[in-house]
């Protein structure tokens, strides 16, 4: 452990973990007790209302990355670092028209993979599945790792125990309650996250003050206030397109679009984006107080907990612990459920058991969630990369899917061959930029190359028949 000073006594941390674990599992069991059909289990009966829809979209997008990486970027890249991170909200807002369109075109669809298969054919579908599963698995591992790191840094409890507890709890309640449990717990977690972050920001401003923070930064770290810091300027649109790529392709957001009641998706995603926008700025601001407080930051993704702990002792540490624990759980359960849906429908049924019944698929979903939980645990164990490295590496992959989805869902132009090429060339160029320039341009380069390829679609004839997308309805 690089940080020598754990703030929270381990018995308090265990108490919080035990309390929340019981709450989440009980809530998951209670919410899932009336699940009868596959639609109930995977898509919460397809009738989620606006309130829960906004809460689940926002809570899922407030991940450990928002609460820990946004402060890290403020600490490393300054003002534009946290503002750039908040542009992740654009992805949610831009997904709103797609969610509405998807609900209309595929009223009985299940996954983002369904759309790619029907719209672009088998080759593009398989490339998309590789990208999507790689991203989902990377996200799951980063969440498992973040849980272990957070619990270790704040309480001294070993990484192994912390990571094991959070992965096990989230897997259990997702198995019990399916998407209903995920959405229900997300609602409670959203409230906890918003209250916690707001209280922390107010306390930091009250205790340190804008003037002192500004003066110390001007004197010791002037580049953090530099609005023309080159890397930050490069980072702005990169983060925007990374967020757009994550949301446009990931089944986490598609499964919600299918689960929301008709007419809800558009409003839910716009409102969630607007409510999410200030969260990284508030969380990031906390990090800028670190130099004024003379805090040493051994690992930049731990800057927010360190500031809270230094300023408010055990109270601050408990507050951060609850916020990040809620953020982690709200995302981990969502990714588990959505990735399991993708594997059940696109791999298990799509490739191996084409005639599987709804009952068989529901049973398979339970085993797949358990398997995913176990794999997440196994891969999180050796801490194969840092959180930031793992996160930004996936940017090169997901940004390549933006244009095939945006064009494919609204236009009858664009073939499967073109979409496949856009995803492959986009990913390859994004990876090249990641290794030769820096993490802060990988998604931007990937999206640019993918766009240039997909623009050729407008030279093709408009031949796609939208009726093909409602195949699920006919085959059911």
């Amino acid at each position, binding site marked *: 452990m690089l940080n020598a000073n754990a703030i929270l006594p381990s018995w308090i941390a265990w108490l919080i973990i035990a309390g929340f674990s019981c709450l989440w599992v009980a809530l998951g069991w209670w919410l899932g007790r009336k699940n009868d059909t596959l639609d109930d289990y995977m898509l919460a009966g397809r009738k989620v209302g606006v309130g829960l829809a906004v809460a689940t979209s926002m809570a899922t997008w407030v991940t450990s990355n928002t609460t820990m990486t946004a402060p890290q970027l403020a600490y490393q890249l300054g003002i534009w670092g946290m503002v750039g991170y908040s542009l992740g909200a654009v992805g949610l807002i831009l997904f709103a028209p*797609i969610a509405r*369109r998807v609900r209309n075109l595929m009223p009985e669809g299940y996954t983002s993979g369904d759309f790619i298969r029907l719209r672009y054919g088998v080759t593009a579908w398989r490339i998309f599945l590789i990208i999507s599963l790689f991203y989902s698995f990377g996200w799951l591992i980063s969440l498992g790792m973040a849980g272990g790191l957070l619990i270790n840094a704040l309480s001294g409890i070993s990484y192994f125990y912390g990571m094991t507890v959070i992965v096990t709890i989230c897997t259990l309640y997702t198995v019990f309650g399916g998407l209903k449990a995920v959405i229900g717990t997300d609602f409670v977690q959203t409230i906890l996250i918003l209250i916690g972050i707001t209280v922390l920001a107010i306390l930091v401003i009250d205790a340190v003050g804008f003037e002192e923070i500004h003066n110390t930064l001007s004197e010791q770290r002037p580049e953090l206030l530099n609005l023309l810091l*080159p890397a930050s300027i490069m980072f*702005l*649109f990169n983060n*925007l397109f990374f967020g757009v790529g994550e949301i446009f392709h990931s089944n986490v957001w598609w499964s919600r679009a299918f689960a929301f009641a008709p007419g809800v998706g558009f409003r839910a995603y716009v409102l969630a984006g607007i409510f999410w926008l200030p969260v990284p700025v508030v969380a990031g601001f906390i990090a800028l107080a670190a130099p004024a407080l003379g805090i040493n930051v*051994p690992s930049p993704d731990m800057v927010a907990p360190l500031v809270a702990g230094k300023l408010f002792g055990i109270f601050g540490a408990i507050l951060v612990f609850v916020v990040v624990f809620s953020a982690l759980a709200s995302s981990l359960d969502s990714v588990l459920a959505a990735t399991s849906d993708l594997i059940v429908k696109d791999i298990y049924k799509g490739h191996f058991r084409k005639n599987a019944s709804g009952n068989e698929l529901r049973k398979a979903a339970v085993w797949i969630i358990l398997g995913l939980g176990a794999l997440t645990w196994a891969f999180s164990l050796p801490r194969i990369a840092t959180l930031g490295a793992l996160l930004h590496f996936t940017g090169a992959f997901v940004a390549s899917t933006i244009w095939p989805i*945006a064009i494919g869902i609204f236009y009858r132009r664009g073939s499967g061959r073109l979409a496949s090429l856009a995803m492959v060339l986009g990913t390859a160029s994004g990876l090249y930029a990641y290794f030769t320039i*820096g993490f802060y341009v990988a998604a931007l380069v990937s999206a640019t190359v993918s766009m240039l390829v997909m623009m050729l679609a407008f030279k093709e004839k408009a031949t796609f028949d939208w009726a093909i997308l409602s195949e699920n309805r006919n085959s059911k």
Partner: protein
Amino acid sequence: MTFRSIILFFIYIFAFSYAHSSEIEIVDNGTTAGYVTLAWPSASGKTFELKQKENGHWKIIYQGQDRATTLSGLADGTYHYALMMDGQSNAEDEINITVRHHTLKRAWTFFGVGAAMFLILITILTIGGRNSVNPD
């Protein structure tokens, strides 16, 4: 020939290890963005002091038991750091960091590409959304 290559390989590894025997390591290199995380995970001792040379004088920038620190907001230039363990310094436990930010021309190029692509995406979604009400 093969034997000679193996010998040369080990000489190279040895020379490389010797030349980089400082206890201070760069664990997160963001020198083109003005930040860097320095760590000394295997340094002996319980308390550490990290000093930075400024105008020919050493200034303590960290003192305590942590085994890493993140420096950020650094302007272009070369920075010289030294580590003291339990009050003892060793000439080998020093490191030079050169910060060279990307040029503004490169930064604005990426910004411009991003902004243009963002506008195209908005246009595609807006026109597509409108047409989806009246399909083409």
